[in-house]
């Protein structure tokens, strides 16, 4: 299907290639990150009054799940403040290349490549997420810890190893960025084949080699492209563009590794568990999730891991096996069918986020106006009272999002099943699985 090369528009290209606008946004977000960490450590411990919890878990999370990821792919990664200090130290520069920076520049160990560490990091954060979500100090400690880890990683390893292999949110964003209608790709791969210096990968006087350790001509999905735009700056032939394309183009391909499939199932299961814990009417589950270290919490942790690592992947394997027989476990059917669940996973997270954010969005005004609880009223919203945006048409927003994701996933399942020559016989168990997970989410929203 055709796509529109946005960088053919001169002003778009100028805006993206220039370092100034990107740096301005990065600096603003870095300042925001520092304020959030300080406020979290020193400010009020009341979560609904502290910027650490309100700006991160309501404002940022809503922006990430409802704007950045579904529409702009990994664009958040291009301005994320967490890896910036480490990257600047590593480069010895804020802007264009200027000599050598600090750090050992080691290659990331081969056996640690892949998605294992990112999956583990996500699960680790997820297990402690309820205390982190609600306690400003823990939110600040998490952000500070991730920032320091990013700096340390940049000083030991080359490029953005933290973002590529460790960031707990990075894998999440990368997976769902495949559904986005924006992608950076090479215009003519044949031209790249004749270009020996490979400046997009090794860098030049105009920019850095791909910080994400990707070779742009080989990019077929958004998973490992952080949209940092360095390759736009280093390609001497202007052979790289940012394209507007039909959503979900990346999902037409079979995934290369089963790690990606596992990640998508972990995240789908996690959306279900999060909705049950945070939005459901089950006080006991919520209480267990927050009392870290108690017997109830250990039971919650075991149940959580059982659902995301056992039940959901198990149902997926079962669905594929029922449809195509034992041979399916050899991998081909798994790798082809797993991407079909990405739209449903994205919709499940969006539905969960909408439901959570609408109820709590009115906390943003007072916190933004008085981030340090010093009696300020920067935007005139310091006195805005809490008023949840619930009921009415918003009640149906989560189910509608869920239904949209399910429809899209159903379409992809049929496509993948046809591609495997399995037709409806292969698609039916997967459609049943997608519907089952959706019904579970629906019960939490409107049951």
């Amino acid at each position, binding site marked *: 299907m055709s796509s529109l090369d946005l960088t053919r528009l001169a002003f778009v290209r100028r805006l993206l290639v220039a370092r100034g606008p990107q740096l301005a946004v990065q600096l603003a977000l870095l300042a925001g990150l520092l304020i959030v960490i300080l406020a979290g450590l020193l400010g009020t*411990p*009341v*979560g*609904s*009054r502290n910027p650490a919890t309100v700006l991160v878990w309501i404002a940022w999370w809503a922006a990430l799940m409802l704007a950045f990821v579904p529409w702009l792919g990994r664009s958040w990664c291009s301005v994320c403040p967490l890896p910036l200090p480490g990257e600047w130290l590593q480069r010895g520069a804020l802007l264009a290349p200027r000599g050598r920076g600090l750090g050992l520049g080691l290659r990331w160990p081969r056996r640690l490549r892949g998605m294992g560490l990112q999956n583990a990091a996500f699960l680790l954060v997820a297990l402690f997420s*309820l*205390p982190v979500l*609600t*306690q400003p100090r823990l939110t600040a400690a998490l952000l500070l810890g991730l920032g320091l880890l990013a700096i340390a990683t940049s000083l030991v390893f080359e490029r953005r190893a933290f973002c590529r292999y460790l960031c707990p949110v990075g894998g999440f964003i990368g997976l769902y960025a495949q559904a986005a209608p924006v992608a950076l790709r090479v215009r003519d791969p044949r031209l790249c084949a004749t270009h020996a210096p490979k400046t997009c990968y090794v860098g030049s006087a105009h920019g850095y080699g791909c910080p994400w350790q990707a070779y742009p001509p080989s990019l077929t999905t958004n998973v490992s492209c952080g949209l940092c735009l360095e390759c736009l700056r280093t390609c001497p032939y202007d052979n790289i563009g940012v394209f507007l394309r039909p959503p979900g183009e990346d999902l*037409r*391909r079979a995934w290369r590794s089963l790690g990606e499939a596992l990640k998508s199932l972990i995240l789908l299961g996690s959306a279900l568990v999060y909705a049950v814990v*945070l*939005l459901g*009417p*089950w*006080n006991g589950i*919520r*209480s267990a999730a*927050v009392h870290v270290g108690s017997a109830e919490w250990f039971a919650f942790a075991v149940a959580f891991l059982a659902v995301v690592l056992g039940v959901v992947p198990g149902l997926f394997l079962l669905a594929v096996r029922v449809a195509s027989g034992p041979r399916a476990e050899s991998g081909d059917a798994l790798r*082809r069918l797993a991407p079909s669940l990405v739209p449903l996973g994205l919709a499940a997270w969006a539905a969960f986020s909408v439901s*959570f954010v609408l*109820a*709590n969005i009115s*906390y943003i005004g007072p916190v933004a106006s008085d981030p340090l609880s010093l009696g300020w009223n920067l935007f005139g919203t310091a006195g805005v009272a*809490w008023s*949840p945006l*619930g*009921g*009415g048409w918003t*009640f149906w927003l989560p*189910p*509608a999002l*869920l*239904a*949209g994701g*399910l*429809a*899209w*996933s*159903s*379409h992809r*399942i*049929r*496509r*993948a099943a*046809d*591609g*495997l020559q399995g037709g409806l016989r292969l*698609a039916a168990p997967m*459609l049943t699985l*997608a*519907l089952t997970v*959706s*019904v579970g989410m*629906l*019960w939490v*929203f*409107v*049951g």
Partner: protein
Amino acid sequence: MPSLPASLRRTIGPFALAGALILPAAVPDGQAAAPRVLRMEARDFAFFPSSFAVDVGDHVTIELTSSDTVHGLHLEGYDVSLTADPGRPARVSFRADRPGVYRMRCSIPCGPLHPFMAARLRVGPPRPFAFGLALLALAVIAGGFALYRRPPAGSSP
């Protein structure tokens, strides 16, 4: 009577089926109104019990008792609110004239888990869930069947 083209029938048919699933859920029922008192306790960032069901038209009184600190209760969709000090039950009454599922949330910041302190009130039969099920069935039908066209041979899946 001229018949519709086969492709159009194939597209419309599943939607008509889903509509048939939805319509029965939309038909109102005729229940007699009754006074209902919902007694709730607020403590440890939770409402006990956390789930209620009343009939459409019932005259509902919510009686909230707080056992630890000041808690509020805001019923979404009805814009009904009350605040309960510890040991001093608070009441509010309203007519449950709008069917659906509504969340009741704590409206007074009471501690770390305050944003998740919620309960649920269902007014009338569980129609929202039935609607939702029909919506999901429609989604599978639309995405997997009605709007699906097999790609031409030789094209990428």
